[in-house]
């Protein structure tokens, strides 16, 4: 084996794993519903690929080769696999996919896996981790780091969820039309949770950050189910937030708030795409939580681009968001917008109304510190900021909160 052949085999195996992982898992687990067994079989097939491809050459259809070998590993379709390996795996894959795909309106098997992972019979807090593992092949340790739990606990939760899918009878199908809106909403929530996990731990090499994975899943959902404008809204929201990533830390690693970020560092292509998607979604005239959140980010951007004060429209959007999808996060963000609009006393009153639910909520204390500072109450602002710092897990954010007060 030459090292060049080995490395091209490695690259081909990695590319197949990255692009086809979820589809192969979905195909392998469809009948048995056994995701864990499918993962083991696919891991085994990938290991064999690395052993065989350098000598034999990379097959014309790496995905088909992996599927065939993994199927044989699972003990399914032995005869078919034997002939397939000999000659034309690509034809077998086509054949398999024809047999495996009764839903012509959902051409991507990964969507079925997304529906399975976010089935209401799966504990909500496991849905996003399960999706990241089953669809993208992320290991439990990396998921655990983003969700701030121990690898052992995350591993156990994932094993339990997969056993439940196998044993409880959760089907690998697309739900009927009348259930689809609610089930799509569950997928969106899981993708957004994945995006948010690790957001606060943005370090230079951000090992726990799942942004790229969440963006991939949001693209998948928007591409295949574009007739739900919320799917497009979610993709737009993630793009608009993600565009600012390079500007969120300065060269020394210190936290930079939105109103002080260097616009030259924003990823313009993402801003442009996010804005265009937001308009596409709006055409369908069915507003929702993610479209509103994307619109809020868009207004924040426009404020920075134009220097105009858009706090009035911003508060209006927060009001609509709170009507549609009430949450602590949105209520606190609305209060922060009130402070920015020069209405700090109203902001403080709004925050006070949330007090009993927010004593350990870092953004609430940070928003409170800002409102108190705007009202000139330095000692109280400092106390609130130090409380916020005490609740932050990110040293850079902690330093910012204390330095700013």
């Amino acid at each position, binding site marked *: 084996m030459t090292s060049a052949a080995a490395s091209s085999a490695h690259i081909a195996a990695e590319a197949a794993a990255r692009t086809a992982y979820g589809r192969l898992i979905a195909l392998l687990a469809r009948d048995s519903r056994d995701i864990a067994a499918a993962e083991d079989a696919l891991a085994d097939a990938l290991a064999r690929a690395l052993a065989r491809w350098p000598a034999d050459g990379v097959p014309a259809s790496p995905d088909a080769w992996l599927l065939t070998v993994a199927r044989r590993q699972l003990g399914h379709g032995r005869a078919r696999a034997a002939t397939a390996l000999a000659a034309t795996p690509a034809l077998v894959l086509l054949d398999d996919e024809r047999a495996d795909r009764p839903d012509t309106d959902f051409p991507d098997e990964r969507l079925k896996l997304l529906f399975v992972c976010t089935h209401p019979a799966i504990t909500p807090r496991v849905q996003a981790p399960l999706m990241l593992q089953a669809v993208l092949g992320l290991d439990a340790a990396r998921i655990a780091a983003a969700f701030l739990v121990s690898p052992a606990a995350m591993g156990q939760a994932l094993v339990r969820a997969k056993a439940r899918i196998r044993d409880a*009878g959760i*089907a690998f199908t697309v739900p009927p039309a009348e259930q689809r809106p609610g089930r799509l909403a569950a997928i969106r929530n899981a993708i957004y949770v994945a995006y948010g996990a690790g957001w606060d731990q943005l370090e230079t090499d951000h090992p726990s950050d799942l942004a790229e994975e969440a963006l991939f899943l949001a693209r998948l959902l928007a591409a295949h189910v574009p007739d739900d404008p919320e799917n497009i809204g979610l993709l737009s929201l993630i793009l608009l937030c993600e565009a600012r990533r390079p500007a969120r830390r300065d060269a020394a690693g210190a936290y930079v708030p939105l109103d002080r970020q260097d616009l030259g560092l924003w990823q313009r292509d993402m801003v442009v795409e996010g804005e265009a998607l937001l308009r596409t979604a709006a055409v369908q005239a069915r507003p929702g939580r993610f479209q509103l959140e994307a619109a809020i980010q868009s207004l924040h951007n426009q404020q920075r681009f134009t220097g105009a004060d858009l706090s009035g429209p911003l508060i209006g959007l927060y009001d609509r968001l709170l009507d549609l999808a009430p949450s602590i996060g949105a209520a606190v963000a609305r209060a922060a917008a009130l402070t920015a609009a020069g209405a700090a006393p109203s902001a403080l009153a709004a925050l006070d109304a949330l007090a009993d639910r927010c004593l350990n909520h870092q953004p609430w204390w940070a928003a409170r510190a800002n409102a108190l500072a705007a009202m000139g109450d330095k000692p109280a602002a400092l106390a609130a900021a130090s409380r916020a710092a005490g609740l932050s897990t990110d040293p850079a954010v902690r330093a910012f909160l204390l330095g700013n007060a």
Partner: protein
Amino acid sequence: MQFALIYYQTASDLAREQSEPEAYWGAWSAYMGAMGAAGIMRGGAGLMQPPTATTLRIKAGEWQVEDGPFADTKEKLGGFVVIEVDDLDAALAWAARAPCVVDGSVEVRPTIPADKA
């Protein structure tokens, strides 16, 4: 695959058997009839009222016989059926039609396949 649908009823729901028997039995027999007509019923039974239950435990060789169901819970076991459907969603769709699902609950559990028992 086969699922047991296990029906749990509240005291007020169970009392309707006496206070408005026609509405009570009408709803249950229509529901059971629909499952029968769909050809999915594989077994099951409705149970008499919880006070008719007798509970037995054997502790250190001693029989302990109690009057009433095993635990004094808010929802009582009212009966169960075993149905044959494709998957959990299909089973949940039948559970959703049970007369007790609004006031009480329905537990949906796969049965152990014959080759594993």
